[in-house]
């Protein structure tokens, strides 16, 4: 089910400001790829170009190619809505729909897409909540509002919501930055399980986290404030953290920069 992402020569703009420049990389299926780098280097922007969420921002525009297996996401006639059904996303801050119950939140993707059978809905919700390691905590209160859960539970609810529509790729934009260590651990364990089924890309500021969860790590950097962010290198996580091929990467992960 999981698909490979192949990016080549990708440049993204906010209006006239060039946010990232000429990025090429391959994201392997059924693996976790982590993006690290200083704030403002374009990790999140790049992540959002992978499911065409970048263009939702006013002025956002993209040049280059993003191949999902053998289809170009920015090719002519590609519907961004369909792209986002294949490439799901989890955001930095947990954002369950406040008007919906826990059940409805997980079912939201299917219901709002209008593509579901009523009889299957309960099964899908249970499967997704189990997949997000949340089922045991919420099975007795599926009809309660999702905003009543704790931050960590809300984030797992958002993950359940994202995987309920069976995407091929799951993008995570700093999914643990608003969570305590225990909730973070729960999410990291979950990522380890989810990579059996999905291609996962995670942006993180926490380098230990990148080392713990990812198979491959990409390091982004920018020459100076106002300059576009660039991909410095991407390699096996072990190599990036032990013996990176670029000096800037080593400086960043060991804290010697600026």
């Amino acid at each position, binding site marked *: 089910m999981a698909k490979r992402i192949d990016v080549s020569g990708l440049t993204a703009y906010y209006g006239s400001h060039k946010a990232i420049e000429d990025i090429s990389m391959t994201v392997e299926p059924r693996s976790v790829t982590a993006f690290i780098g200083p704030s403002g280097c374009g990790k999140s922007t790049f992540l959002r170009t992978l*499911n065409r*969420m970048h263009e*939702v921002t*006013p002025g956002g525009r993209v040049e280059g190619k993003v191949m999902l297996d053998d289809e170009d996401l920015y090719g002519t006639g590609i519907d961004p*809505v*369909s*792209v*986002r*059904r*294949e490439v*799901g*996303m989890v*955001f930095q*801050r947990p*954002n369950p*729909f*406040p*008007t919906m119950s826990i059940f409805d939140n997980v079912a*939201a*993707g299917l*219901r*709002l*897409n*209008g593509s579901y059978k009523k009889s299957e809905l309960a099964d899908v919700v249970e499967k997704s909540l189990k997949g997000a390691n949340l089922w045991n905590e919420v099975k007795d*209160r599926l009809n*309660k*509002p999702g*905003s*009543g859960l704790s931050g960590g539970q809300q984030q797992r609810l*958002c993950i359940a*919501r*994202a995987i309920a*529509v069976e995407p091929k790729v799951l993008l995570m934009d700093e999914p643990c930055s608003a969570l305590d260590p225990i909730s973070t651990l729960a999410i990291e364990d979950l990522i380890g399980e989810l990579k059996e089924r999905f291609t996962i890309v995670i942006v993180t500021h926490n380098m230990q986290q990148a080392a713990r969860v990812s198979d491959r790590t990409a390091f982004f950097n920018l020459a100076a404030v106002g300059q576009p962010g660039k991909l410095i290198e991407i390699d096996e996580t072990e190599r990036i953290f032990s013996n990176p091929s670029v000096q800037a990467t080593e400086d960043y992960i060991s804290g010697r920069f600026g």
Partner: protein
Amino acid sequence: MSTATVSTLKGARLPKWSPYAIAGGSVGLAIAIGLGAGLDSRVQWGLIAAILFVVGTYGIAARVEGKRQAKDRIATSLVWVAFLLAVIPLVSLVWVTVARGVKVLDVYFLTHSMGVVADTEPGGGIYHAIIGSLEQVGLATLIAAPVGVLTAIYLVEYGRGKLSKAITFFVDVMTGIPSIVAGLFILSLMLQFEMQPFGFAGSLALAILMMPVVVRSTEEMLKLVPNELREASLALGVPKWRTILKVVLPTSIGGITTGIMLAVARIAGETAPVLLLVFGNPFINTNPFEGAQASLPLYIYQQYANSAGSGAAYDRAWAASLTLIAFVMILNLVARGIARWKAPKTGR
């Protein structure tokens, strides 16, 4: 400071009851001054009391507690004085309306028209005016609410560039249209087609007045919906229109309803366009599309204008005012109820 062990963090404090004591003292002193100087107007008494309260608070606090605390207290007392000044007209308005309105307000008054009652005679009622008001305001809402909400959705969710700027500008201009001008606008159309006054013409003018209010309030409510919710929905592969319909609108529906209800309350009291376009009619006319109708504000105006010293018409005008205020207040309460009922739930 007599000893070196006095805490630098503690200062002298006025007791908790001191603001009330100062307030009581200044009111007493104001009455004494008023009586002594032979001032007739109670307004002057009140103003003297307010000034004494503010000055007294500052003086006493400055002496006991120091300058900074005195400034703090003077700010607090100014806020209280401003609050009381704002509440006095409101309370007195409600008081006078209730006191004069209850005289003839009964079931008979609410269920009978002025059909066979001359303005100078007692009896009669406002049934025809209530019917007229409900129909005209209802039709105006049916026109203005959807148009206003959809305009706001366009402005917040889709609008970019010149068109949305132009719409925002015209909505701002429309907010400032005096009601009589809206009335004259519709009247000029009616004269063009040689039409007689009828209820729906009034509805059109009221809709013009209501629309910008609905657009503005709905816009504010939609802007309050966190962008993260829109992105969460879009990232699930939900099309934009469904995102707006199923995520954005449900999240803000309470506030939007409140805004619409407040706009309804605003147009329910409009007299000028109704006077021009609906004309007024002492008989019951339930058809808003043909023939003159009455409406509550128009009824109040006409009863008062035609009372000519007649106590009966005067009392009816006050009773109708009370009904109108009650109507608007009920709308407000309903709006609050809906807002609370529809508000996103946070309970566990």
